Structures are given as C-alpha cells and as structure tokens.
C-alpha cells in the first residue's frame, strides 16, 4: 500500500467514528439529566441580599418584623406549615440544631390558622429565634418559595447563600448543609 492510500483509509476511519463520538456525548449529556431531580429549582436569590418584607409575629400580632431579622446572620431561614408532613418530619432535627446554638428564623407559610401553628410549636418545641407569620404567602413569594419546607442559608451580610428544598435531616446536614453553614460562620469571623 502506498502512503497516500494509508492516509486515505485513516481519514475514512476518523469519519466513521464521528457518529460514535457524537452518540457518546449525547449519552453522557442525557445520563447527567437522568440523575437530576426535575422538581428541584435553583433559587434566583443566591448571593443576593434578602428581599424586603414586613410580617407579623406569629405569637404577637401587634409586633411587626421586617427583613432586618434576617440580617443578623449567619442563620437559617426555615419555611414551614402545619399542613406539611415533611415539615413535621424535619421538626425534631431543627430542635436539635437550635439546641446546638444555630439561629433559625421560622416563616409560617399559608397555614390553616394562627392557633394551629402556635399549638404545633407549643407541643413539638419551638426551634425558632423569631417566628414570622405569613398567612397569604406574601413573604414567601418574595423569596420564590414553591413548597414547604424550604430552608435558606443567610450569611452575616444578609445575603442568601443557599436554598435547600425538602427536609433538613441528619444525613444531608452532615453531608452538605453543615459545611455551608460553617463556611458562613468562618466568613463572618474574618
């Protein structure tokens, strides 16, 4: 075989492999999508300051809170409701986190009644440093809340650093969330 012929057949081989390479790229791309949770939405607020709002205190209707309560971070901002079973599931662990000294601000989101929410905290324990009451979901709307529970990680400068959708439990706390919180604490000390 002459040199030219060898080059020609090499070129042919490369051309034949193009569809295979494209196929592999497509498979990798689609496999990556397969492992993704389609219900998980990225928050738009990441690295942005907490939005402005006013909300009544859950226990004391005469007391008004604003976004200032979230600017005393690093802290967690937890959205919950009594109609939400997953909130019930994570409540025990929130109590534990609060006992460890982690400040958690609670937002009672579109609950059936103020009384029901108060009962819940009185019986199950109150992990929250401040309890905001949001019967119409107005505060939650500002945060782009699309379900409960959601937990926002807010740093010392009052910026949203992370949004966790679903329950906070010992496993995801150890694996991921604790690290995010500790990072915020570390930055606050600097």
């Amino acid at each position, binding site marked *: 075989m002459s040199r030219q012929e060898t080059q020609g057949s090499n070129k042919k081989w490369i051309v034949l492999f193009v569809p295979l390479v494209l196929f592999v790229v497509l498979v990798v791309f689609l496999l990556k999508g397969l492992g993704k949770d*389609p*219900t998980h*939405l*990225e*928050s*738009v607020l990441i690295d942005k300051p907490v939005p402005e709002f006013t909300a009544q205190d859950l226990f004391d209707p005469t007391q008004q809170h604003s976004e200032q309560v979230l600017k005393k971070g690093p802290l967690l901002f937890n959205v919950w409701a009594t109609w939400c079973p997953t909130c019930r599931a994570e409540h025990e662990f929130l109590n534990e986190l609060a006992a460890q000294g982690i400040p958690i601000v609670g937002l009672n989101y*579109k609950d059936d009644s103020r009384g029901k929410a108060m009962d819940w905290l009185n019986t199950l324990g109150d992990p929250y440093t401040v309890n905001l009451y949001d019967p*119409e*979901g107005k505060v939650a*709307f*500002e*945060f*782009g809340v*699309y*379900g409960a529970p959601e937990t926002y990680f807010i740093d010392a400068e009052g910026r949203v650093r992370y949004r966790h959708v679903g329950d906070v439990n010992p496993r995801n706390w150890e694996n991921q969330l604790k690290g995010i919180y500790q990072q915020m604490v570390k930055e606050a000390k600097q």
Partner: protein
Amino acid sequence: MRTFTSTVISALALLATLFSLYAVGQASIREHAFETEAQRELYQTLIQELRCPKCQNQNIADSNAPLSADMRDRTYTMVMEGKSRKQIIDYMVARYGNFVHYRPPFNWYTSVLWWGPLLIIVIGVGVAWAMSRKRKQPLALSEEEQERLKQLRKPDHD
C-alpha cells in the same frame, strides 16, 4: 323496552356527570373583573405564558396548585395597577427564575436552544451535499489498477 329505558337513564346520568364536572372546572378558576378589554387580554396572555414552579409542565392558567392561584392573583393585581407585560414577567422571573416563563430569554446559556436546531440543519445539509458530490466523481484508476481490474474480471482467474 326495559333495555331502552335503562339506556336512556344511563345516558342522562352520564350527561349529569359531565355537567357537574364542567361546573367544578369553572368554579376552580376565580373570576377576575377587568375595567378594559386590554387588561383582560394582557392577563389572559400572561397566565398562559407563565409557568407554574410547583408543576413540571403547566402554565398557571391550567394549574390547580395553590401557588399558581397566588401567581394569578399577583398577575391580576399588577395588571390592574397598570404594570406592563414586561414588568410583570420581570417581577416573576426575579422571584422564580427563568423557569417561570415559557419563552426563555436569549442569552449565553439559552443560545444553544435557539441556534441548535439551525446548526443541526446546516450540518445535515452540508453532509448530504458533500456525500452527493463525492458519489458523482468518476472512478479514477491508475494504469496499474486498470490492469489489475482486468485480471480480476477474467472469468477463469485463479
């Protein structure tokens, strides 16, 4: 006779069920009053175009999710306040992200969505053209090869 009566009864029952379903469907959409036709139109287009964040693929007009109801109410309030289409969409996107709008904006991340199909057509047409051109080329054999071909064609070749 008996079968005829029972058929009529079951047909009536079916009709009644359908009507009640229709009534339920109507009741789930809260009526909003508008001052002008333009407001109604703007509201209608917006709720068709805005996507429910809680659902996988439904606009807020079709979705029964409480969040969709909240978003419809917010859209209505903003329309009545005289906000423009763009203002309302920006407001929703600022809270729920680009997910919330069925028409993604054109930027670096979405460019592949807009140009991808065109690119694939161009590549396809290109490949087809290149292949058809190649096929048209006549066989160019060297003298050596001609000779070999002749040999191969001989019926009693061994």
